[in-house]
């Protein structure tokens, strides 16, 4: 029998039991809507996180010595990068700037009669800041008692700090250092990618003269500053190739870092893209997990279809007998019942997708992130709805097809 007639008869059958059909469809709607909600929320979350990270720093490579299985973004890392390494890195093709980052443990920072407790400030060099990040003033000069602060740090003090203000930095050891603020950078200036999540106040000092971590360089002679983090700024467009060259430098035993790195730790060189990939993978995995739970709701809906179709087959045994007596083949009967199940599934999917998108919208509003639609998921949901109908309807339809017309016509 042709598809149009199959559809017409199936629709008629479903209409005869509107409430029952509607309740069955609701089961599928909930399942599909749950899947689409979580998929939409996951997509939105990913898009939001990625857009936070993807800044202007596409041409930066982050070096850190972290535990080998952490992939390069865990914690502050081990201090292994020496001045010798920084020099070698500067000579690598494609490298524009090499910005080390070290920690100066402090107990407080004072301005005028106001003192604020801080545990650390960042030691770096004069090239750490991209010019565009300066809201005011300039970078400090190496070897001078100068400081750069970011805007959140400037706001910590009454009346905001501005260039020319004097700060008193109290080291953890108790020694006091007087410095002059020479520049104020915006929230993201000179930071590691993750830092932008929280606009934390930061104070930057020149490594010379404030940084104190030194180590005996294996390659050069004498003690050198040693840093836990280094950012390599590359020529734009050459980041990937430069990253490979940087990795090559650390791969052998040529670098100080390779010789200094403790057992179980490894030097990693990652770009923003690597970081974005990694976070995308994490969010995707999380989304899949939650969506997987939502799929359970869909399975319950499918069981609902199978259940109602079995009831329907029993109720319509006589009709099946009639159809067979007037020339319906088993496959015609199967087709009819399968079409009904598929209609239920497809209807559930078609209604469930917009509901799921609405659910995703609510979730993103609640989480205060922008809504990102996942059209692929919506299309997939409809396909899944149809498939659910097929799978759930297969056994009932097979039962219907196998009905013996003689028994069926006798059936009351």
């Amino acid at each position: 029998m042709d598809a149009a007639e199959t559809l017409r008869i199936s629709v008629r059958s479903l209409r005869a039991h509107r409430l029952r059909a509607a309740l069955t469809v609701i089961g599928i709607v909930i399942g599909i809507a749950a899947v689409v909600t979580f998929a939409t929320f996951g997509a939105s979350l990913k898009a939001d996180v990625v857009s936070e990270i993807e800044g202007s720093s596409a041409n930066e490579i982050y070096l850190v010595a972290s535990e080998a299985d952490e992939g390069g973004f865990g914690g502050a890392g081990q201090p292994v990068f020496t001045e010798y390494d920084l020099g070698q890195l500067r000579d690598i093709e494609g490298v524009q700037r090499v910005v080390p980052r070290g920690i100066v443990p402090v107990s407080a920072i004072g301005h005028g009669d106001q003192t604020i407790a801080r545990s650390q400030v960042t030691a770096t060099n004069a090239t750490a800041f991209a010019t565009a990040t300066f809201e005011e003033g300039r970078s400090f000069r190496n070897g001078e008692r100068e400081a750069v602060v970011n805007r959140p740090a400037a706001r910590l003090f009454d009346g905001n700090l501005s260039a020319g203000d004097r700060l008193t930095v109290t080291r953890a050891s108790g020694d006091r250092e007087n410095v002059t603020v020479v520049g104020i950078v915006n929230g993201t200036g000179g930071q590691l990618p993750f830092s932008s999540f929280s606009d934390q106040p930061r104070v930057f000092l020149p490594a010379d003269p404030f940084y104190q971590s030194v180590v005996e360089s294996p390659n050069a002679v004498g003690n050198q500053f040693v840093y836990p983090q280094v950012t390599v700024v590359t020529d734009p467009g050459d980041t990937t190739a430069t990253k490979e060259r940087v990795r090559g430098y650390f791969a052998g035993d040529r670098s100080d870092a390779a010789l200094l790195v403790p057992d179980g730790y490894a030097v990693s060189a990652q770009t923003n893209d690597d970081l974005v990939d990694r976070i995308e993978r994490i969010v995707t995995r999380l989304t899949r997990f939650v969506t997987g739970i939502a799929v359970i709701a869909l399975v319950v809906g499918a069981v609902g279809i199978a259940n109602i179709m079995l009831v329907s087959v029993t109720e319509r045994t006589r009709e099946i007998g009639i159809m067979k007596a007037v020339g319906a083949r088993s496959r015609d009967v199967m087709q009819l019942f399968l079409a009904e199940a598929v209609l239920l599934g497809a209807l559930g999917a078609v209604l469930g997708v917009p509901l799921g998108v609405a659910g995703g919208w609510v979730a993103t509003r609640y989480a205060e992130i922008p809504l990102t639609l996942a059209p692929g998921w919506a299309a997939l949901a409809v396909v899944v709805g149809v498939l659910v109908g097929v799978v759930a309807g297969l056994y009932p339809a097979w039962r219907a097809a196998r009905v013996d017309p003689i028994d069926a016509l006798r059936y009351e």
Partner: protein
Amino acid sequence: MINLSATPGTGVTDATERTEAGTDPPPGAAGRDPGDADTVVELAAVTRTYEGGATVDALSDVSLSLPEGSYTAVMGPSGSGKSTLLNLVGGLDTPTAGTVRLDGQDLAALSEAERARVRGRTVGFVFQTFNLMPRLTAVENVALPLVFQEWPRADRRERAEELLADVGLGDRLDHQPTELSGGQRQRVAIARALAADPALLLADEPTGNVDTETGERIMDLFEELHEAGNTILLVTHERHIAEHADRIVHFRDGEIEGVETVVETGDGDSEGSGAGTETEDA
């Protein structure tokens, strides 16, 4: 007015007393040569056994043929094998032994799907309980066999409308079965049985669920169909219904007990003097 020579008005007649008197009107009684082109149904030594707790022979060694254009009634008490015969002839069931040929085709040799096709194309069923599809309209019910024969929709509708007009329901086309009386429903069912222009009409107690007057009108309709050349096999347990046929085959305990020929008077149909009957096996 119908006159029946042998034991008019009574039910079952003793088969052994019957002799075939007239060879005239329906050419051919039970047991004609198989393969005859004019034979619509040919049962040869058909046995149908049901395996249950005990083995039951619903039909045993039955031979019967229905010539084209014949009108045959099957009578017998319940359990005599009437329904089994109908199921076998209609291609709903297959025999345990023997062959059932419908329009020359051995039904047992066909696949399930092919038998379904034969049911739709070669056989028209009319049931006691009408067996209309409850949610389809009259015209859709009549067109249903054509759906499975892959007729285009417009052609189906046209054919169904024609047939409904023929059975006097031209004004009830889009009514659902629940909106029709019993007689009307049965006429829809008859129209449905005729939809694919089948070689054989099978009627199982077609008047069993309607009042006497309506029943007579239904039987008149069958009479018209017979006159139009349709081959009819009618199962009934009511003698006055069976007497509409040319020939009555009596079943008892799964066997043919006797065959009697009905002679109608006051009707131009047949001129045999009397009629009688006779038998296959003793």
